[in-house]
């Protein structure tokens, strides 16, 4: 092949992809040689998952090429990628829930004997091949998915957050097996947030930031700091310092006290206090248990252990209505889940006002109009397209989701990544709004995937890694690199 530039088994260059107004990838590249495990890293929103989808043929890039063993494999489907020798194991197991293990193997023409070999190698020798996938626990599914990939004997194995939600003993076996694959001459792309695993099995790391490949470094002791710097880029220097007077944490009963909260496999042990008038940031990489934490607090999901106290009273939420009755209000990450998209701005803001049964009957229009008008004014919502919320910009939609709780009056607000995908001006307005709410006595829990927001909007931040609180940082110390290090579990210290 004349156009093979290197001995790379997989060679992706200049990959770009745009979704509407968002340029998810600008110029991503990745080279993997035979016998290597290469880590693919990047902070939330760096474009990692888009890049993985392009490598595996789920998405077609707008420009750039992916070559496997010198042949262009820029294909548009996973079956094609597999023919070229790349087999992925996704974060969510790609097994058919209503088919048996054996039928899943048949569906993808996977040889059964090597599969059996690999499942027992990976620590699940007694798996029943006739068992339906939907009857198996998640950890087993990941092992089945990995064993299926290994049985195909791919040239390139792509593992996306493979060890998330795996018990420790299985993690060790999986890591050994993955390393052995590379030692036998195959190539592995290892997408992970976990530095200890990367240090244990990877040869190199490729780092993405804002859709660009910003580094390709050999893994050696102490490289973690450099990788963190690369993931942050110039952001550290440019961090806006808007110091507010430090708040002294009151010693009164906290509005919300969470102790030893556990649910599912991801949220293992989270405790913190949230006081009246405080904005408490939550910092976590994707999938560290923050989704589950907010679900439990909003009454969407039950905790398997731990307690939630509101104003000193222990509470158990069986339904979102219980959480709302206790004064806990969730603004979900996906605006589409919170808004009535084809109704007007006014109606959307008024909905929680009406949600009380004692107001059953005629809507008191005058009172409603006054409250709603006030909320629109406070938030400076652009009401030119107010007839239907769907026609507003993302930022204005987000303001509507917050505005409704201002109109109603809120005690404890749970914000889940409220500024994702909205412009900087609107973001600032939302920070201001959150501060105002706190100054009026509300307690706010603020999860954000943008580390810079902690300083701008919060008083303190708890850092969650692997389902546990690993650090509590005051806003004045919360520069991005401190937060990033903590979020990657590099500075673990027991919270006071």
């Amino acid at each position: 092949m004349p156009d093979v530039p290197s001995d790379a088994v997989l060679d992706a260059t200049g990959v770009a992809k745009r979704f509407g107004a968002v340029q998810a990838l600008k110029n991503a590249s990745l080279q993997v040689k035979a016998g290597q495990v290469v880590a693919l890293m990047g902070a939330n929103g760096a474009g990692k998952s888009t890049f993985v989808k392009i490598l595996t043929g789920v998405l077609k890039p707008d420009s750039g090429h992916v070559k496997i063993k010198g042949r262009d494999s820029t294909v548009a489907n996973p079956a094609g990628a597999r023919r070229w020798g790349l087999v992925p194991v996704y974060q969510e197991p790609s097994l058919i829930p209503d088919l048996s293990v054996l039928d899943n193997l048949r569906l993808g023409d996977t040889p059964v004997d090597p599969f059996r070999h690999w499942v027992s190698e990976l620590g699940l020798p007694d798996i029943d091949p006739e068992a339906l996938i939907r009857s198996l626990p998640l950890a087993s599914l990941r092992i089945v998915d990995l064993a299926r990939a290994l049985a195909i004997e791919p040239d390139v194995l792509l593992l996306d957050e493979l060890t998330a939600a795996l018990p420790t003993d299985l993690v060790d076996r999986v890591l050994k097996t993955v390393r052995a694959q590379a030692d036998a001459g195959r190539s592995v792309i290892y997408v992970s947030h976990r530095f200890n695993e990367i240090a244990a099995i990877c040869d190199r790391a490729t780092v993405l930031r804002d859709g660009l490949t910003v580094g390709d470094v050999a893994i050696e002791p102490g490289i973690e700091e450099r990788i963190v710097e690369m993931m942050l880029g110039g952001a550290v220097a440019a961090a806006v310092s808007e110091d507010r007077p430090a708040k002294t944490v009151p010693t009164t009963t906290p509005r919300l006290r969470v102790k030893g909260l556990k649910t599912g496999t991801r949220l293992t042990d989270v405790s913190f206090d949230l006081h009246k008038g405080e904005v408490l940031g939550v910092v976590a990489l994707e999938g560290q248990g923050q989704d589950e934490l907010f679900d439990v607090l909003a009454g969407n999901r039950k905790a398997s252990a731990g307690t939630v106290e509101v104003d000193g009273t222990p509470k158990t939420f069986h339904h979102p209505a219980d959480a709302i009755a206790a004064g806990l209000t969730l603004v979900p990450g996906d605006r589409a889940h919170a808004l009535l998209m084809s109704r007007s701005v006014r109606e959307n803001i008024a909905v929680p006002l009406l949600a009380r049964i004692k107001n059953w009957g005629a809507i008191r229009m005058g009172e409603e109009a006054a409250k709603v008008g006030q909320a629109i004014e406070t938030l400076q919502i652009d009401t030119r397209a107010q007839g239907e919320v769907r026609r507003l910009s993302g930022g204005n939609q987000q303001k509507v989701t917050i505005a409704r709780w201002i109109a109603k009056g809120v005690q404890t607000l749970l914000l889940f990544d409220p500024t994702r995908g909205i412009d900087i001006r609107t973001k600032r307005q939302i920070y201001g709004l959150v501060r105002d709410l706190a100054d009026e006595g509300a307690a706010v829990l603020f999860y954000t995937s943008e580390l810079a927001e902690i300083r701008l909007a919060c008083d303190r931040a708890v850092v969650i890694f692997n389902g546990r609180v690993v650090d509590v940082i005051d806003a004045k110390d919360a520069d991005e690199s401190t937060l990033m290090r903590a979020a990657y579990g590099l500075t673990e210290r027991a919270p006071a």
Partner: protein
Amino acid sequence: MTRWIEANSWTLGLAVLLAALLLMTKLIQPDFGASGLESLARAALPFALATVGMAIVVIAGGIDLSIAAMMAVASVTGAVLMDGATDAQSIPIVIGVLLLGLAMGAINGTLIVVTRVPDIVVTLAMLFVWQGVALLILNAPGGGIAPWLRGLITGSFGPDWLPRAIVFLAVVTAVIWLPIRRSKLGLRLYAIGSDPLAAFRSGVPVGQTRIVAYALCGLFAALGGLSVSMGTGIGEPIPGPYLLASVAAVVLGGVVLGGGRGGLLGPILAVLILRTVRMDLTLLSVDPNVAAIIEGSIMVAVVMFGAVLATRGRHA
């Protein structure tokens, strides 16, 4: 063995229910016998074939609202072409009608895959299209049908208690479905119904498989349309009540709306159950309007009862 019973408990339950209903029929009407069974089976045949077609689409995660209209197109096409034809000429006509069914279904499926308009909308639109086509071909019941076809489903075999209509149903369903069920295509149909994303990632050609599912539905609709003509001897351009009846039987038969679970035997038994209930209510001379209310209530009750049993089973 235990696992087989567990996996097929719903179907076994339906079989027991059907046996109980037939026994009850015998109690209500002591002279119910071979001929009663024969006419019950013949009346149920178009419903059963429609249900089989619907079940395949639902297993693959879709729904086809145009099924009764496709049956009408097949019925009138067969009756118009066969009117006055010899037995020898009628064989290629039957094959042609079956191919027409496949084609109609494939058109439905292709429109859904290509336009990405929801299946319920596309097939609702196609319901009107196929209805119009049927009336263009024949604007009033008429035409004719080869006598040997009528003979296929009329009468009983051997010891009188095995209606030919049941044998016909079993044979065509087995010949078409069993090879598919045991091949990779069968796995793919279940896979796209169960989890289309996982199926896509497992390398299943999701769009193609969906089109195949609708084409198979069209094929069974054509068989159903022919069976309507085989029962009456003429072509029927106005679609019968097969759409809602087939959805009802599919649900009662243990196929989950939403896809991925269930088989064909359950829905076939469910059709027979629903027809037997109707017959019994007629025998008891219940007001037809009251009978409809009772039928609907039975359906809801059985499905709810089944859901409760399934939940209990999981917790036990």
